[in-house]
């Protein structure tokens, strides 16, 4: 009880005692009524507070019931996304390895052949080469130059393929960022659930966060969806190839 309340109660008790001693029945009755009304008011206030806490606890529990959604829908969805990341990184690794393996022997034979020709060329410049050998050498040089030109093109193409294969980092990065967001939401909801079961009162000022907020975001008309992961969105909403994009744009007058 606060000191102001205490003083008030003490004052009432003292004046009640005075009136009883003086035999003021009317005043005694009035004071007794006032005192009991005060008690009732406190009781109702306490009951009101309890009701509010109960209501908030129920609301909090409903919010945390979204954990069920997370477990039933978002986690399997995240597993699918993570598996897709494995598939994409594997494809990129294979694409890179194939491109490298294909042209590695080309650059090796180019170096070896250049070394052989260099030695013969030294014989020519040192004037120790016969005319017949020189004819043979010039033929070999011609062949080497042709082959080098073709092989260099091949190497360049494969290097460019290696370059393009690195785009997996962007796409898988976006997918992983989404999964990390989901894990964060999950954590938030679990923390809230633990807090909710440990104490009776849920903070009433807390705004919907995490998944609730994410669901609100997702309902915006042109939200960011991230890279398409097979099996995670209705297929008819998704454009599958650059050709489809071009067709759609040309239907819009592009």
């Amino acid at each position, binding site marked *: 009880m606060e000191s102001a309340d205490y003083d008030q109660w003490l004052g009432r008790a003292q004046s009640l005692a005075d009136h009883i001693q003086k035999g003021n029945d009317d005043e005694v009755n009035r004071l007794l009524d006032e005192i009991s009304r005060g008690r009732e008011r406190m009781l109702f206030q306490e009951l009101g507070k309890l009701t509010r806490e109960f209501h908030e606890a129920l609301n909090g529990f409903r919010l945390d019931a979204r954990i069920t959604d997370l477990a039933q829908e978002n986690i399997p969805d995240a597993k699918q996304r993570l598996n897709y990341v494995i598939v994409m990184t594997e494809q990129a690794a294979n694409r890179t390895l194939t491109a490298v393996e294909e042209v590695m022997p080309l650059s090796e034979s180019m170096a070896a052949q250049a070394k052989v020709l260099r030695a013969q060329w030294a014989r020519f410049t040192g004037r120790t080469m016969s005319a017949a050998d020189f004819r043979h050498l010039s033929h070999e040089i011609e062949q080497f130059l042709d082959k080098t030109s073709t092989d260099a093109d091949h190497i360049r193409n494969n290097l460019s393929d290696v370059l393009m294969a690195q785009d997996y980092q962007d796409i898988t990065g976006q997918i992983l960022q989404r999964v990390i967001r989901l894990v964060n939401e999950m954590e938030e909801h679990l923390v809230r659930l633990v807090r909710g079961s440990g104490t009776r009162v849920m903070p009433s000022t807390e705004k919907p966060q995490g998944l609730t907020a994410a669901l609100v975001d997702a309902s915006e008309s042109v939200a960011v969806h991230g890279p398409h992961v097979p099996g995670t969105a209705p297929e008819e909403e998704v454009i599958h190839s650059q050709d489809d*994009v071009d067709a759609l744009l040309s239907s819009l007058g592009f």
Partner: protein
Amino acid sequence: MKILIVDDFATMRRIIKNLLRDLGYTNITEADDGNSALPLLQTGNFDFLVTDWNMPGMPGIELLKAVRAMPKTAKLPVLMVTAESKREQIVAAAQAGVSGYIVKPFTAVTLKEKIDKIFERIQG
């Protein structure tokens, strides 16, 4: 020709930069989202903008709208290179005035085709 590449992933910026260099474009500047791209576009005389969609800060679609709203850049050719492949998004980009739209993953040939087409249209 002065080109600005906007993508939050440095690897993708490098890939696009390399591809553009192959096509003979060497004057290339990079930015990692719309917020850092806009001041560059306001001050620099860029001839071409290549942007991603999904970026923290200012996403590509907002950047596109901002570019179209500024008198200095209203006619700047904008090529969107993005993993966003929902029908509604492509339509939204078209409505916002995108000049070309490439979905990731893409090929060097696709990039060349789209760029050629954009400049053909400008010159034609």
